[in-house]
């Protein structure tokens, strides 16, 4: 019983971490229709910034949110405006290549500036363990869990209750009709991309005290994030959240019962089953998928 409980807790903690990373990706995916292969690298940049600001200003890592999130929001806007937007009329593959290129460029830029060293953001008490019955969790993990719930809730409120949110959803549903209703679609795309990147910025700040960062860090998270986004239903934020928790639990259980060498088989096996039997994702619906394609 204790063992099961530990596995569930581990799985949920890992799942909420994945959720944080995936939410921004699904937002960008669902609304601007851009598959952002550089998502992990934005996170890596966010973690690097967190490290730099924390060590130079000597402040608590969470306080760097004030700097990192706006900076990444701006970076997102710049990328959308100068890289993605000019390609909007070209083939979808070109956009994919553009984000892949951006990802490679970002990794190599960091390699050039910082080398392949690992940087450790001070953990500032966030690696303290909390006993939850038989399971142990870190304070930082609990914060990530809570924040992922707030983030998903907040984004949901933003998209349903605000004028900007409604405009964003209108753009997602039908680009041309939205434009006819007087919505500035390219501005919406810019803001959405910015918000998506800002979300991964929040994830970066919360992750930094727990994980060392190097130029390749983004790569370790991004593949699983893509699985989650597709499983949750493209563009569905709540879907991504639940899918992340499921993947987290599968990861923890398969890691224990099948061994860590086989756990990816379980994760991707489930992913394949979802693709075969519910191609629109666990929480997406066919209508949504039609808009994405």
């Amino acid at each position, binding site marked *: 019983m204790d*063992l099961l409980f*530990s*596995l569930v807790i*581990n799985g949920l903690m*890992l799942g909420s*971490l994945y959720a944080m990373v995936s939410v921004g990706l699904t937002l960008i995916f669902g609304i601007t229709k851009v598959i952002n292969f550089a998502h992990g690298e934005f996170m890596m940049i966010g973690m690097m910034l967190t490290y730099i600001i924390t060590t130079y200003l000597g402040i608590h890592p969470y306080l760097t949110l004030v700097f990192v999130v706006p900076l990444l929001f701006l970076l997102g806007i710049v990328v959308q405006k100068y890289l993605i937007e000019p390609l909007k009329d070209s083939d979808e593959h070109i956009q994919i290549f553009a984000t892949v290129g951006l990802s490679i460029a970002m990794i*190599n830029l960091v*390699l*050039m500036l910082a*080398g*392949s*060293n*690992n940087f*450790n953001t001070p953990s500032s008490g966030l*690696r303290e*363990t909390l006993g939850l019955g038989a399971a*142990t969790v*870190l304070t930082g993990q609990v914060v990530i869990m809570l924040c992922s719930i707030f983030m998903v809730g907040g984004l949901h409120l933003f998209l349903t209750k605000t004028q900007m949110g409604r405009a964003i959803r209108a753009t997602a549903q039908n680009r041309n009709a939205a434009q006819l209703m007087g919505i500035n679609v390219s501005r919406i795309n810019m803001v959405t991309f910015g918000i998506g990147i800002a979300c991964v910025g929040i994830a970066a700040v919360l992750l930094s005290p727990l*994980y*060392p960062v*190097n*130029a*390749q860090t983004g*790569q*370790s*998270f991004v593949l699983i994030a893509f699985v989650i986004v597709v499983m949750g239903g493209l563009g569905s934020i709540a879907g991504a959240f639940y899918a992340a928790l499921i993947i987290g639990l599968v*990861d*923890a*259980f*398969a*890691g*224990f019962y099948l*061994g*860590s*060498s086989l*756990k*990816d088989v379980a994760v991707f096996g489930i992913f394949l089953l979802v693709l075969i039997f519910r191609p629109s994702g666990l929480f997406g619906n066919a209508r949504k998928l039609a808009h994405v394609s």
Partner: protein
Amino acid sequence: MKYNHKLRRTAISSVIATVVLGSISTSAMAEVKFGALYPLSGGLALLGEESYRGLELAVDQINENGGVQGETVVLETGDAVDNNQAIGEARRLISQEDVKAIFGTYSSSRSIAASQVAEMSKVPYFELGAVADDVTERGLSYVFRTNPTAYHMAETIIDMLVNSIASELEVDPAELRIGIIHEDSNYGSSVAKHQRTFAEQEGLNIVMEEHYPASIVDMSSIILSLKNEEVDVVLQTSYQDDSVLFLRQANERDYQPKAIIGGGGGYSMTPTAEAVGHDVIDGVFDVDFTQYNVNPDFAPGIEDFQAAYEEKYEEAPRSGHSLINYAGALELLRAIDAGNGFSADEIKKAVLAMDVPDGETAAGMGIKIGENNQNERASMMGMQWQDGELVTVYPEEASVADIRTHQ
């Protein structure tokens, strides 16, 4: 016509200049060119450069003492950023720079790719730092390796466990429950394979074996399995990220085996200890190339090496990679010096004649090229993190401190 005239004049003067300059440099002292092929940029640059520094220092020392066969050694570098570039640079060094031999390479995959090119061109290739078995197990006749490999790493880990750690723990080695975890690339897998073989020879009890991708972000289920299997001794072969992750999560989940023995780069580096915390890593064992806290009587010249390093690069060595490259290169250059000419077969003859006993190089290990052109006297050192420092504890003659156990 005027244009042609001018062109011809420039051409003539440049030819004269080349001849004059050329004769000046040759009259001072003849030069012999060797290639130095390392990843000097890109993801492996840090330890690639560290390895190259070792070779550079060996060449400096040889040149100060009159060069090889009376000729000054000049190193021509090639940057092996990836496997394709390693091949391209090896071709350039051989065909354009006309190097007599190539030294390298730190990365096993680059070494395997580039040495193939050298073999085909019949240029000797000296591997000073890559550990994969395949570097010397392909039956090539001009590829030589001086450094210890995955095989030696596993051998030292099991030997240290049986001969030293178990007796310190006051248990029969066969009673220990051993868990092997390793990253799943060629490196981790080949060390684990040899660990299994040596452990079986010693009659040890391996109760669990797991591998994982080096990019793993959560090892809590591995730790749960280790706890569940009541593993006493964990053998981990890993890079840096996964070493940090394992040690952190094991500590946070209050998993305290009797011993953790790490293999390779991740466990030897000070940044790893700093990331994990010196109090957490204290007592952890590590088997790797010779590092700097070693008995200088067993590694003569190590202090001079450190002094020369600090003078040239204005910092302390960042890892043992420079030392192992230095020790190998120095003996190889001495051997070539004792030879007769720089043809591939002469160099091979000279290198095969090397006979350096244990305890006479700066890295401690002896050098004698044996089967498959691998140094049969290569060995690694057993170390332990004690009070913030990585000190050598095994073998006895190289140790500077006693093994400590948490009892």
